[in-house]
C-alpha cells in the first residue's frame, strides 16, 4: 500500500512539473503587448524594452523558467496586469478561495448523497416508472450542454420562486440555486453508475442464494448488493472533482459569485495573462490532487485491486 502510494505520489508530482513547465512556456508565446495592459499605447519602444528587461523577459527562456519555479516555491505567482494592476496575484485569489471551496464541496456532497440514493431507488424499481423517469433525467443532464440548462434554471426557477437572480453574500436564499445547479451533473453520473453496478450484482449467484435462504429483499439490497456496488464508485470521485471544476467556472460567473471560477472568466475577457496562468495552474493542481486521492481511496476500499505491479 505504502509503495503504491509513493509511486502514485511521484507520478502526480511529475505531472504537476510537466504542466507547470508547459503552461509557462505556452504563456510566453502570447504577444508581448499583453504585459503592458492599458499603458501599451502611451509608451515608446525604448520604454517598453526597459520594462520587459526589468521584468526579466529578455533573459534566456531557461533562466526565466528557473526564476518562475523559484518564485512559485515562495508562493509568488506574479502581479496582475489588467484586472487589478500591480496587485500580487495570490492576494487577489486568496479572497476568492472560500467561496469556490464552499460551493465545490457542497456540490460534491450533494452529488454523492442524492446521486447514490437515486441510483439505489432506480435499481430497486428496475424498468418501472421511477426508473424510467430517472433515466430520462440522466440522459438529459449528460447530453444537453450544462451551459444551456444552467441558464434556463437561472431564468425560470428564480422567476417561479421569486428569488434574486444574482448571488448576494448575506442573502442565504441566493446560495441554494447555484449549489443545486452545480450538483446536477454529479447526481446524474453517480445515479447512473450505482444503478448499473447494482443491476449487475443483482444477477449474480450469491443474490440468488440469499433469496433462496429466505432473506428479505431489503436486507439483500443493503447488506450485500450495495456494499459490492459501492466499491467501484470510489473511482468516480476524482471525475466528480474535475466535473465540479468546470461546473464551478460556469456557475460562479453566471451568478456573479466572487469565487475563482468567476474570476477566471473575468480575467480571460480582460486578457490578464498572469492571472489566467495562475488560475490554470491552481485548477490543474486541484485536478491532480483529486485524481491522486481517488486512486488511493480506491486502493483502500477494494482489497482485490493488486497494488504491486
Amino acid at each position, binding site marked *: 500500500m505504502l509503495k503504491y502510494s509513493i509511486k502514485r505520489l511521484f*507520478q*502526480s508530482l*511529475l*505531472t504537476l512539473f*510537466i*504542466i507547470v513547465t508547459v*503552461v509557462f512556456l*505556452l*504563456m510566453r*508565446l*502570447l504577444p508581448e503587448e499583453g504585459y503592458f495592459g492599458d499603458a501599451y499605447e502611451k509608451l515608446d519602444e525604448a520604454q517598453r524594452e526597459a520594462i520587459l528587461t526589468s521584468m526579466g523577459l529578455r533573459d534566456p527562456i531557461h533562466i526565466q523558467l528557473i526564476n518562475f519555479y523559484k518564485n512559485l516555491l515562495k508562493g509568488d505567482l506574479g502581479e496582475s496586469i489588467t484586472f487589478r494592476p500591480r496587485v500580487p496575484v495570490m492576494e487577489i485569489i486568496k479572497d476568492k478561495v472560500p467561496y469556490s471551496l464552499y460551493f465545490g464541496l457542497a456540490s460534491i456532497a450533494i452529488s454523492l448523497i442524492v446521486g447514490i440514493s437515486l441510483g439505489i431507488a432506480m435499481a430497486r424499481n428496475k424498468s418501472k416508472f421511477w426508473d424510467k423517469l430517472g433515466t430520462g433525467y440522466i*440522459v*438529459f443532464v*449528460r*447530453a*444537453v*450542454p*450544462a*451551459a*444551456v440548462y444552467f*441558464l*434556463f434554471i*437561472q*431564468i425560470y426557477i428564480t422567476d417561479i420562486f421569486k428569488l434574486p437572480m444574482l448571488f448576494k453574500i448575506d442573502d442565504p436564499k441566493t446560495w441554494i440555486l447555484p449549489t443545486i445547479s452545480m450538483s446536477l451533473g454529479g447526481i446524474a453520473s453517480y445515479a447512473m453508475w450505482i444503478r448499473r453496478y447494482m443491476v449487475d450484482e443483482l444477477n449474480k449467484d450469491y443474490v440468488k442464494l440469499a433469496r433462496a435462504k429466505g432473506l428479505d429483499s431489503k436486507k439483500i439490497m443493503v447488506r450485500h448488493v450495495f456494499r459490492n456496488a459501492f466499491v467501484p464508485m470510489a473511482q468516480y470521485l476524482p471525475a466528480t472533482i*474535475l466535473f465540479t*471544476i*468546470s461546473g464551478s*467556472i*460556469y456557475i460562479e*460567473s453566471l451568478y456573479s459569485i466572487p469565487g475563482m471560477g468567476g474570476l*477566471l*472568466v473575468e480575467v*480571460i*475577457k480582460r486578457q490578464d495573462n498572469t492571472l*489566467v496562468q495562475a488560475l*490554470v495552474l491552481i*485548477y*490543474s493542481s*486541484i*485536478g*491532480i490532487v483529486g*485524481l491522486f486521492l481517488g486512486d488511493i481511496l480506491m486502493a483502500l476500499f477494494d482489497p482485490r485491486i493488486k497494488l504491486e505491479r
Partner: protein
Amino acid sequence: MGKGAVNKLRNSIENSIKEDELFEFAEFDEEEAKRGGYSNYSYWRSTWKVFISNRLAAFLLILMAVLLLFTFIQPYLPNQKSPTKIHNHPETNLPLKNLRPNEEFWFGTNSIGQDLWARVWSGTRTSLMIAIIVGLWEAIVGITIGALWGYVRWLDRPITEIYNIINNIPKTIILILMTYIMKPSMFTMIFAICLTSWIDMARFVRNLTIIIRDREYNLASKCLGTPTRRIITKNLLPYLVSVIMLTIALSIPSTIGYEVFLTYIGLGLPVKTPSLGNLVNEGRLLILNPSQRYQLIFPSIVVSVITISFYILGNVFSDAADPKNHV
C-alpha cells in the same frame, strides 16, 4: 493438352446449354437450413434488427436524418435569407432589431436585425461540422493508438505512462488554455478539442484489444490457419464497431457542449460566425427582457434536440452492435 481433351471441352460447352435445363435452383428454406446446423446469422442484419426494434431509437433516427438533410439543404431552398445579412425596414431604412417571430422572420430577428431562422440552421451546420470532424479524428487516432497500445507488447509501458500524465490534467483546463493562447477560429476550436478527445477512446480500444487478442476462439482460428486479415475483420472488428459508432455519436453532444461552454467564457468562435454556441450566448445577453427570450429559446431547443437524440442513438446502437445482445 491433347487434341482429344480440347474436343471434350468443346463438347461439354456445347452441351452445357442442355445441362442448364437439367438442374434447377433449390429454394432457400430457413427451417430446412437450421435442421442441418446452418445458422443464417449475419452481424449487420442482427445489429439492425435489434436497433430498429427500439421504437424510440427508430423515431430519433428518422428525426435526425431529416434534420441533417434539412440543415444541409436549407440554404438552397427558396425564400431563405442569408444568416449574416442585416435586414432594414424598407421605408425608414432602420435595421429591424429584435422582431418577435412572425410570418416574414419565422424565428424573429436578433439584436442587430439578422434573420434568426437562417442563423440557427447555419449555426447548426457549423457546430455539426466541428463535431463530426472531432468524432472522426477521435475514432481514427483513438483506434490506431489504442490498437498499437494493446497489440504491440513493448509499447504498453511507455504509452501507459504518457496516458497517466495526460489523464491527470482536467480536460476543461487544457481546452481553456489552448483556446486562450491561439486566435479564435474554427481551427483553434477543433484543434483544442482534438488534443485530448482521443484519450478515452484509445484506452477503451486498448482494453478491448487485450481482452480479445488472447481469447480461445482467436487462438482456434489461428490454429485452423485463418489469415490475420479475416481474424481482424470477423473476430475483432465487430467488437470495435460498436465502440466507434458510440464515440462518433457521443462526440456530437460533447463537442457542442464544449463549444457552448468556451463561447460563454469568451473563447469561442469569432462572433461573426454563426454557431450554436454563439447563438446561445447572444440569446443569453437578452434574458433580462422576457419578450426577447425567444432568441435564447430557439437555439436552445435545437441544441437540446440534437444532443439528446445523438446521445440516445449512440447508446442504443452500441447496445445493438454488441454481439452478446443478438439472438
